[in-house]
């Protein structure tokens, strides 16, 4: 088994469609999809992010980090939310991604989340990370 993150990105087109949609309908559609994931026993975590306009960007291009308000770059580069699924294969993660009730114009990227067991276990920092994960119950 492996964990995959499904990263959802919007575009101007999908954001416009989202604004037009009824909030209740959206909650129902997304809720139904989430319920499917729960019934299939694969849902590990899911979060959606607040409006990118409320965000802040720290730019490391120069020597000193530059802080600017608002979104970074183009809408299509913006990360809007994610799912983490525990599935048998990348193809299964892709199959679930196809079913996300997404607005036209949005895209979903599928990335594997390596487990801590894949790192050198004798490294002192990995040992410390393991302790932290134990104490906080992280994935």
């Amino acid at each position, binding site marked *: 088994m492996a964990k995959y993150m499904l990263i959802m990105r919007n575009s101007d087109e999908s954001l416009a469609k989202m604004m037009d949609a009824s909030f209740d309908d959206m909650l129902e559609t997304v809720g139904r999809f989430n319920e499917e994931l729960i019934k299939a026993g694969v849902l590990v975590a899911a979060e959606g992010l607040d409006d990118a306009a409320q965000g802040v960007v720290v730019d490391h291009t120069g020597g000193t980090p530059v802080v600017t308000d608002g979104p970074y770059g183009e809408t299509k580069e913006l990360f809007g939310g994610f799912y983490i699924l525990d599935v048998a294969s990348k193809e299964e993660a892709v199959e679930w991604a196809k079913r996300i009730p997404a607005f036209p114009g949005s895209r979903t990227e599928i990335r594997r989340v390596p487990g801590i067991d894949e790192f050198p276990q004798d490294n002192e920092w990995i040992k410390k990370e393991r302790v932290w994960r134990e104490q906080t*119950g992280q994935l």
Partner: protein
Amino acid sequence: MTSLEAVWRIESARIVGALTRYTGGDLELAEDVAQEAVAEALVSWPRDGEPANPVGWLLKTARRRAIDSFRRRAARDEKYALLASEDTDGGDGHLWDPDRIDDDVLALMFVACHPVLSPEARVALTLRTVGGLSTEEIARAFLVPVATIQARVTRAKKTIAAARVPFEVPPQADRKERLGGVLSVLYVIFTEGSTATAGDSLLRTDLAYEAVRLARTLAALLPGEPEVFGLIALCELTAARFPARTAPDGSAILLEDQDRRRWDRSAIRRGLAALAQATAAGRGLGPYGLQAAIAAGHATAASVAETDWERIVLLYEALGRVAPSPVVELNRAVAVAMASGPAPALLLVDELVAQDRLPGSHLLPSVRGELLSRLGRTAEARAELELAARLCGNARERDVLVRKAAALS
């Protein structure tokens, strides 16, 4: 894994469930037409491209095959004549009914775990029809020839048909007992998958995970059942120890010697959450819930010494009342030894010996030997450990017993 395999893994239970209802409860026909649809997809998807709605495509294809079959059988069986004449809407509207699909999947689970089937048949049929595993995958996981699993599944479907097992979620009066049957099949799958001593260990863990996945599905479909959560908790808390239970050379590491830092904390957290759900029902814990509570006692203790053994003893007592078994009694004796010392534990073990409750098992003399050794009765301890070694079937465990006996000389 191809995308067809991924679709099948996600949807097989719902596809076969919907088709079984559609065919008037004919699981064998439903499975056959579903497999035919998959075979057709194997040819046509790569050639014509994957359909926009893969599940709809599979259902439509399977339904067409089912109708062919109804027509062929109509002459000799009225039931199929009726089914053939009923299906005139031209679509698959009544085949895929969102309001019934959960019940179809549940019914499929209950039928696959039906008491008319042998335990092996229940396991094979559940993995095949509900889990969507191929015959080859099941055979590999159980280390038996493909033909054996094939025959087991075929025979199981014939038995279901011959016994006229209805395709339904059992009525309330039978629910508890039948649910117990489903849970025990899932637990057998989990235990088989968690046996580190046989086969490809990676593959085996996948089998254990399969049981957890099916148990989660069951919990989502039957939310009011505390024992389903008890089983999930037991599986999660047991699986949490997987990373720590084998040494680099493949030998098993006993609970007391495991590096607890290697236990999977997120599995423990999920197990404790499921156990809290089982407890919250307020109806007392059942056998799975109690075993989970014992596992939780270990999972949350920093070491063997810091384990709340008094509580573990009480939990074993409760487990012995709801699911009496000599193995539970023996485990209780071990817990008593940890909580109150070897003398009271030996009394319990001697009672098991006197009643000959575990004939031929190496576990009883091995525990008895340990207790005698802690009491300083060395000669008796050595004899018991030697007896245990003679009875033990596992070479690695036998070596440990022989070494322990020799150390007492």
